[in-house]
């Protein structure tokens, strides 16, 4: 079966327990007394409200201290992430707080990826200097210069990893520290709800309408 569906990443026990704790709270809010389905079906709007609330409650409001990065390193990685998914008329990786996701990941379930980050961050200043003489920090470059530099390293394991982790930070559950305010999900139109009712999209709506009018073949 689909080889492209093979997985990435690891987890530690502590991490997992913490996640389960979040989830348990999350589930209790949603399921009321535990009679999940009946309750869900009769209270769809409450479910959505509770879910929204749970997502917000699980997220810390103020920036937390970095656990793995120094502030300087964080600024560099955040600048790269902000080129991978930039901010334009809609929020990007920066507003989604992807950097907090990556920092937490490197401190917990992605410990094995630290070395690639450390090496990439160490080599970055010389690459910047080589291409732009007067500057040393990636985050000091203007946007065009940043893009130019990333194009030069876009096939490196370092860039591939930052890309992967930026995407995870943009689209993983907000409980992991990124996807702030579900910015990533809102961008692409994904909704995590416990209840949807048909029609789900345009073509099944048309299909149903045709059937109701007796136009089906």
């Amino acid at each position, binding site marked *: 079966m689909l080889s492209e569906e093979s997985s990435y990443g690891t987890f530690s026990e502590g991490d997992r327990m913490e996640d389960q704790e979040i989830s348990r709270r999350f589930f209790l809010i949603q399921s009321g007394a535990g009679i999940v389905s009946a309750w869900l079906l009769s209270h769809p709007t409450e479910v959505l409200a509770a879910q929204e609330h749970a997502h917000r409650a699980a997220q810390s409001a103020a920036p937390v201290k970095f656990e793995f990065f120094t502030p300087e390193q964080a600024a560099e990685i955040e600048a790269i992430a902000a080129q991978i998914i930039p901010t334009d008329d809609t929020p990007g990786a920066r507003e989604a707080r992807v950097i907090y996701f990556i920092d937490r990941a490197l401190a917990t379930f992605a410990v094995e990826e630290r070395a690639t980050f450390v090496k990439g961050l160490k080599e970055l200043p010389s690459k910047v200097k080589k291409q732009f003489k007067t500057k040393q920090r990636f985050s000091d470059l203007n946007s065009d210069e940043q893009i130019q530099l990333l194009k030069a390293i876009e096939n490196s394991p370092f860039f591939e990893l930052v*890309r992967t982790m930026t995407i995870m930070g943009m689209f993983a559950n907000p409980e992991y520290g990124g996807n702030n305010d579900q910015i990533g999900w809102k*961008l692409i139109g*994904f909704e995590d709800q416990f209840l949807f009712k048909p029609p789900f*999209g345009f073509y099944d709506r048309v*299909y149903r309408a045709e059937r109701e009018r007796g136009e089906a073949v």
Partner: protein
Amino acid sequence: MMGYEQTKFDATTEIDFVLVGTGAAGGIIAKELSAAGFRVLALEQGPYLKEKDFEHDELKYVRQWAVSNNYKRQPNTFRSAEKEKARLQPAIIYGRMVGGGSVIYSANYWRFHEIDFVERSRLGAIAGTGFADWPITYAELEPYYTKAEWELGISGLAGSSPFDPPRSKPYPLPPLPIKSSGALAELGARKLGWHAFPAPMAILSERYQGRSACFHCGFCQYFGCEARAKSSTLTTVIRDAEKTGRCEIRPNSCVRKVEIDKAGRVTGVIYFDESGREVFQKAKAVVLCANGAETPRLLLLSKSNLFPKGLANSSGKVGKYLMFNGSAIARALFEHPLNEFKSVVVSRVIHDFYESDPRRGFYGGGGIDTRFVSYPINFALQGLPPDAPRWGAEYKRLLKENYTHTLGALSHTTSLPLETNNISLDPDVKDALGLPAVRVTYKDHPDDLRTMKFLQDRSVELLEAAGARNVWARPVIEQTFAFHLLGTCRMGNDPKDSVVNKYHRAHDVPNLFICDGSSLVTSGRGQPTCTIQALAYRASEHIIRMAKSGDIKPSL
């Protein structure tokens, strides 16, 4: 929360049957044997999770193997030919929890067709393969397909596919609502003269047996269902088994050896309990349902003087004839929103190319379904067309425009049984318990690759006929990763070419039974769970018959 007392046997309880594995097959056998009056202990290597434990969390469930084999603790190695040295590389995935893969699969529930059981005699031998007829026919299995559908709760529409095999009873539940992918499959199929029919799914379209109907949250594949709408064994027969008071489900218990006496009869199993302690569990008979990788691995681990090649392996076929099923996808972008992330994975299926056709010039056939493909992370990593940028403003724009407008047409195809495709013990790599890791040796037969390409081309035609704005398909390549693990202890009448007989009894060991994906003789066209579960009902009936008539003689 469970609403009943779970059975816990103490060490002195006399156990009739030890089951290894509690998945699609094991759950059913646990229920049937305990309901028939036998004391059953089902050992499961994974945890016992309940509905309240399940979460919507792509990172954890899809990318970090929260409920499947974890490659750090249950590593496997892979190579494409026996002359190569296998390397550490995820090659198999299975549900590692009570309920096994039946908890986390997409719940497609196709019956095999009549041809699947007799294809070898209809088409003739295929040189260099182990292509064989089954020892049973579709007609013999039909009552058990029906039983599985009604006991577990399957949604579908009998007679909606002109290619459907005969059935004795309709589905217990009507089909689930059509999705946009399904409406487009119907549209494309109509233009091409093909037939798209409502997907048979192990997901409840209406309330059934006290369980809720699906409320279309969209978290099916890789996820457990909080609503109990997916008809896993966890939420159906395993509860029923426990309610008999004669079945204990013992999680976090990993069996390392099936023990035999001097006469070659099974005496019980040795397993690591949840604290890592080795325990011997005596039993009158043992049933292996640990999946198509773990079942042969356990037999190969259970070497003895009587069985130097591994238990029940006088034929040398334990682990051999591994079949993955072929799989190839085409993706497409449509003008209007599909919102495929809502509801179940699949709502329409096409079986027009199910049978092999000699005019194509190669063996093979398959089905196509149109479906939801990616949760957000996976989509952003690899869901855009191959010519799309991988980062930057244009990449972001495409993610925004494409996510709700993209679907896949996935083909599910035949794999020929080859001795050179197999499960063996890795000589170097050990798992977290210190046992030799699963080594997968696999290379698709050229006809399997041609079949995948043929079906992928049909998928592209289908999507174009349905009016897609853009259709793309990556080249078909040899598979190195599988969800379906089939054929590795196959059924047969000839003890020299099969591991179990038509009643799932090991040819070599009279009180050892094997029933799971490993029992399959041919691969079908993907979606094997329905057939595995029908086999489990049939095997149970025969095991009960033999046990009641005193035919299963335990070790003394």
